């Protein structure tokens, strides 16, 4: 391997790693606040790419059907909850929030999709669609089980992965899609060609990570989420609704995943079932961070990207084997350094 190839592989690895890092952050965020191991994150990534690819052709993306369908279910669940608690007067408000909000997003996308507006508008529409799915998913699938064990929540996650996978096939078909790059230009820095797209990916990942840090450090909602992550019961006592924290968490996580989907589209062809492996690579990063540390998870994800890139050069057939086997030494190390016996919940 000569330095040019090494530089190229490193660039690839860092670009992919930056995308995995976004995912890893979303996964750590979801786990710390809600104790959910969010396996279907990958489907959100794939849907991000495929929705954007659909908008490129001027088609109304199938994601909208899921959005509206879940909004109706969530609205009915909310309304039923109000009625059961004897608060029937709150029903219209709930319906407006849970059905009206997503319906507004859906209507906007449905109206604008055929116009083939500029690329950046299409990206925004994609992000709006995917982000709106996040809290709906939490409301419909997870919230009724919010107090269940990590294990039950994990099985729900895997069941959701199945459902979303099947829906993806139904709405997007079996063909893969790519989305255009933000820029096809490249720069030459110190004799190494660096594509502007890679720089954009890394820069926007860094920007998002920075924005998250600001959100958690400076805003009241961010602090509320942190409080919930540390102690759910305690957060509840000081007036932070766990339902609200869950919905907010999933909104942020869905946004991160949707954005990852937009970033990964120009790099790899994405099929309806590509999300699973992409999401799991984010998980490998998150596990390196013990599902609790943001910086270590991001660094772990970067490592995953690099290892994947270099192993695709040396042993391309065993790329996935190498990436997923990486988890074994990580777990071994964590297991040997975990001295105390942790009491299961």
């Amino acid at each position: 391997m000569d330095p040019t190839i090494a530089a190229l592989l490193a660039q690839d690895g860092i670009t992919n790693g930056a995308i995995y890092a976004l995912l890893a952050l979303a996964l750590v965020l979801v786990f710390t606040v809600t104790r959910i191991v969010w396996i279907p994150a990958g489907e959100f990534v794939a849907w991000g790419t495929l929705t954007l690819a659909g908008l490129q052709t001027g088609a109304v993306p199938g994601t909208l059907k899921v959005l509206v369908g879940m909004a109706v279910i969530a609205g009915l669940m909310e309304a039923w909850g109000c009625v059961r608690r004897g608060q029937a007067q709150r029903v219209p408000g709930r319906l407006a929030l849970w059905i009206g909000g997503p319906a507004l997003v859906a209507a906007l996308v449905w109206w604008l999709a055929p116009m083939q507006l500029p690329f950046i508008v299409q990206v925004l529409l994609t992000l709006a669609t995917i982000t709106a799915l996040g809290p709906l998913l939490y409301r419909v699938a997870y919230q009724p089980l919010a107090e269940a064990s990590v294990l039950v929540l994990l099985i729900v996650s895997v069941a959701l992965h199945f459902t979303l996978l099947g829906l993806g096939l139904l709405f997007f078909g079996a063909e893969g899609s790519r989305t255009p790059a933000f820029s096809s230009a490249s720069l030459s820095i110190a004799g190494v060609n660096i594509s502007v797209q890679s720089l954009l990916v890394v820069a926007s990942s860094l920007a998002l990570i920075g924005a998250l840090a600001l959100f958690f450090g400076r805003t009241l909602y961010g602090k509320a989420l942190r409080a919930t992550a540390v102690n759910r019961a305690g957060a509840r006592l000081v007036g932070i609704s766990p339902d609200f924290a869950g919905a907010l968490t999933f909104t942020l996580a869905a946004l991160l995943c949707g954005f990852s989907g937009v970033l990964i589209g120009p790099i790899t062809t994405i099929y309806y079932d590509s999300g699973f492996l992409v999401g799991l690579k984010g998980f490998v990063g998150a596990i390196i961070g013990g599902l609790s540390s943001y910086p270590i998870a991001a660094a772990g994800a970067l490592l995953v990207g690099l290892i994947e890139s270099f192993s695709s050069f040396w042993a391309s057939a065993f790329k996935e084997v190498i990436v997923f086997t990486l988890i074994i030494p990580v777990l071994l190390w964590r297991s040997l350094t975990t001295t105390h016996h942790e009491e299961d919940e």
Partner: protein
Amino acid sequence: MKAHWPRAAFAAFVAALAVVPLFAPEFWVTLGNYIGLYSIVALGLVLLTGVAGQTSFGQAAFVGLGAYTTAYLTTKFGTSPWFALAIGMAITGAVALFLGFITLRMKGHYLPLATIAWGISLFYVFGNLEMLGGHTGMSGIPALSLFGFELKSEHRYYYLIWGIALACLWATDNLLDSRPGRAIRSLKGGLQMAEAFGVDAARLKIVVFVYAALLACISGWLYAHLQRFVNPTPFFITQGIEYLFMAVVGGAGSVWGAVLGATIITLLKQVLQDWLPALFGRSGNFELIVFGILMILLLQFARDGLWPWIERLLPKRQPPPVPPAAPLPARDRTPLDGALLDVQKARKQFGGLVAVNDLSFQIRPGEILGLIGPNGAGKSTTFSLISGAAELTSGDIRFCGEPIGGAPPYEIARRGIGRTFQHVKLIPQMTVLDNVALGAYLRGSTGILRAALALDGAEEARTKAEAARAIARVGLGSHTFDAAGSLPLGKQRIVEIARALAADPVLLLLDEPAAGLRYLEKQELAALLRTLKAEGMTVLLVEHDMDFVMGLTDRLVVMDFGEKLAEGRPAEIQNNDAVREAYLGGVV
């Protein structure tokens, strides 16, 4: 847990299984074969997920190991399939042991995540290794022969599959109703409780994981010789997830849930694969959508799966009274001179906080000693130091003259100190009898293999009889076969005492036994403790309730701010100015 349904129902099930291939069309026999294969895998998950509270999404990979090992050995080297089965099980066991070792010491979610990663890795290994035929797979696997019969037809193979499946069901059912089975079932109640009765939880979790993996391996071996061809597809993580669904749908708490779940998922998949593509107007794995949604609904509304519903329809058999049997070996009870328990300058520091500050006291044989004090005095920490749940910072604790400071909880239990918990720790679904029998865990020696093969009859009968005696001793005989969780709190606390008694202790440690009890329940508890004392038992009582301890104990040790404030007879303590100061904030 153990299905108490009549032998007639079981015989009818086996008879139905046996006659199906005689008249059913080929298609049904094929389905029956697959249901049998899947049941074996789901059975392992029932034990792992439903009983031990762990889970794995990677069972399909273990199935694959079994299938590929025999495919490779029989086609490349022409070895006997039975030899290949042994090798396959050895490899599977080693892999599961390793995965279990690195994940099961940590929190519950690392094992499933590791099994996902492992399942994906192995799939790509199968698909990319030339010697295993890559993605096209390997063909030409020989048919099995049994006693000179070649099992080439699906009909004949059906009997082999179901023979093995029933044997696995039988062994697993035996295992659940045995000494190691009770220990496995106790894992869900928290490690602290299990370990206090001598269960090596970490080791047992790994054993269960290996057991489940071996069942999967057997299923894979059967699959390879049924299909006579293997490729990587059926061993992907998707199938691994389906196995878990089978266990959860059927009911992960019962061995029959595995068969029910495998049947439902297999038939449902058949139906959906016919219907859904027609409904959506194109082909694809649309049954995944329905599976996923069904699963979420099931978890939201019926987390125990469908088997409990069927079990309710079956006629109930009244369990016969526990037959008498010789007692288990009892402890040597030579009276000893001096203190039974001697706490010398025991100290516990959490960082800068001194929770127990050089505390010294003694318990004499045959007395009831009360350890009291205001909130935060360090009573519970002292209790933890004696029971081994917390480690001494410095000082010494001696039991029967031998040091026990720093010994693990099971070692302390083994030496004859029985305990109860401040927050009742029983396994709610288990009967009172089984809960109490867990207390006698250290007095038996049956291992997994002996239990699975039902070779533990004599010891099991003695254990059950011992447990029944302990239950009768505390006066709960009429509740012997009730689920422990169905009793009121007061009775549950008494069950905890019976469980401690089943270990044949010399000293009983009771952690706030009167907390949350009603007046009458407290009186019954006091009467029970007096009876035990009359029988020669020594008791240490950590308690809040003044009336309760004053009337019951021989002596009291009063703690405040981690130190001993006073020691003496109840009447002396009541008139002690320092104690009144601590409790009432000065002389009123």
